[in-house]
């Protein structure tokens, strides 16, 4: 088993992924460190979102997909035969590209997951709502309208609500799939700030198309191209002196 000192929360080992006959990921091996922000970058179709969705088994939902290799979460292979994907998704939360709140009240959006996981104490639920919304820096804006539909909020607020909703499950890892690509610059800045705060308590893995964003908020960056992990190291290094020419070409905007 893993030693306590092991900082690598998730380890992907020789992962291959197939949509039917199409091979979307080839021999991916990479580790994700605790309390860090790891950015996955690369041109469209390079497999970065596929990898992200693989880490909490969201790809299970697509018919005709196949995974080879191992993804170890705290030492356990999440693709092992006796692993319940529902349990994995409770511990590894996800925020999607487009804000997707439920057509319920703000309060019920937050309590939806915890309630179904068995929490039914009103006081605890209320505390959890406040805590999650505060963590997502949304509390001050919505504390008086918790009973209103989440659909009334702006896009940026909805996305922060979705982050709060994911945080309410108290996950260890937060996966973010281009969380700001549908938002305006001000909302984007708020969410980037939020990510910086959250990394104290959570391991964050974020897919982004925006290279400045990756440079601003991440500690580690992985560059993907055609389903392969081309280069993976500290963000600063990737953006200043990458080892591989393809990475440099992409970052400097020569292709992609």
């Amino acid at each position, binding site marked *: 088993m893993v030693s306590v000192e092991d900082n690598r929360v998730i380890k992907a080992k020789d992962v291959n992924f197939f949509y039917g006959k199409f091979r979307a990921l080839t021999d991916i091996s990479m580790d994700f460190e605790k309390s860090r922000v790891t950015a996955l970058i690369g041109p469209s179709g390079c497999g970065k979102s596929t990898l992200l969705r693989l880490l*909490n088994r*969201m790809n299970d*939902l697509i*018919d005709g997909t196949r995974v080879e290799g191992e993804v170890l979460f705290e030492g356990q292979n999440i693709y092992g035969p006796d692993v319940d994907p*529902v*349990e*994995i*998704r*409770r*511990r590894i*939360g*996800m925020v*999607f590209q*487009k804000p*997707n*709140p*439920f*057509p319920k009240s703000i309060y019920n959006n937050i309590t*939806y*997951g915890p309630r*179904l*996981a068995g929490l039914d104490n009103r006081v605890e639920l209320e505390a959890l709502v406040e805590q999650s919304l505060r963590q997502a820096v949304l509390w001050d804006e919505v504390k008086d309208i918790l009973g209103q*539909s989440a*659909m009334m909020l702006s896009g940026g607020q909805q996305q922060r609500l*979705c982050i709060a*909703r*994911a945080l309410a*499950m108290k996950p260890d890892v937060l996966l973010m799939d281009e969380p700001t690509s549908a938002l305006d610059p001000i909302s984007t800045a708020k969410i980037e700030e939020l990510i910086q705060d959250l990394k104290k308590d959570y391991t964050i893995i974020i897919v982004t198309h925006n290279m400045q964003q990756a440079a601003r908020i991440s500690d580690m960056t992985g560059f993907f191209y055609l389903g392969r992990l081309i280069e993976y190291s500290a963000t600063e290094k990737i953006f200043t002196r990458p080892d591989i020419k393809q990475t440099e070409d992409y970052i400097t905007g020569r292709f992609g």
Partner: protein
Amino acid sequence: MRWRYFKEGVFFWLVRLSAFVITAALGGLLAYILFNGLGILSWNFLTLPPTDSMTKGGIMPAILGTLYLTAGAILIALPLGITSAVYLTEYAKQGPVVRVIRIGVNCLAGVPSIVFGLFGLGLFVVFLQFGSCILSGSLTLGILILPTIIGASEEALKAVPQTFREASLALGVSKWQTICRVVLPNALPGILTGSILGIGRAAGETAPVMFTAAAFYTAKLPSSIFDEVMALPFHIYVLATAGTHIEATRPIQYGTVLVLVGLVLGIDLIAIVIRSTIRKRKRW
């Protein structure tokens, strides 16, 4: 240039005309029924049983019978239809098996209603020995409207955004809970609207009930689901073709038609009201 405007004008009027013809057909039909049936309509007509060999009195047992049969059909077909649709859209792997089931459902929708009547007679009345009763009739009508309900439910389930399912599953909520808490509640208005329209149709069907539930005449009101009932469509059929006083019962025939049409349109109206209120509230 002028020729082109002329052509456009002609075409425009053709389109308008065809829409008008349809509306006029419906309007004419309703006006005719109203004109002939309104005279006999009274509180007594709606609340009294027929008397004097059905040449006098009201049609209360037939109204009640149709309500029972329709309610029974809903109780049978709605749960079965919704669960089938959930299986087809949410669980079944899209492939040859599902395709065969879908084709089956569509074929079921195309089967003439008299065939359903005979099937109900063979299976429920004779083989299962329920006899001609509310249960047999409701089961037969239920099967008749099943394709409509499955179709409506499938459409409504597919209309629920995939992102809702993803959001729920990503929170570590199981698929079953996701379906119960997110997918079905959001699909329910659509399911109900589509189903109610199907039910309206079932209420007006004659052939499926004539062998399985409907009595020519019974003054006794049903006391259990194993009793025979009168039904509005069958009552009209009987009065208009099979009685010995066909001319004498003309007003009653029109009155019954009016009540039946009113009932079906009323059911449809409920569906329309549900749909429009939901559309106003929907925000995705």
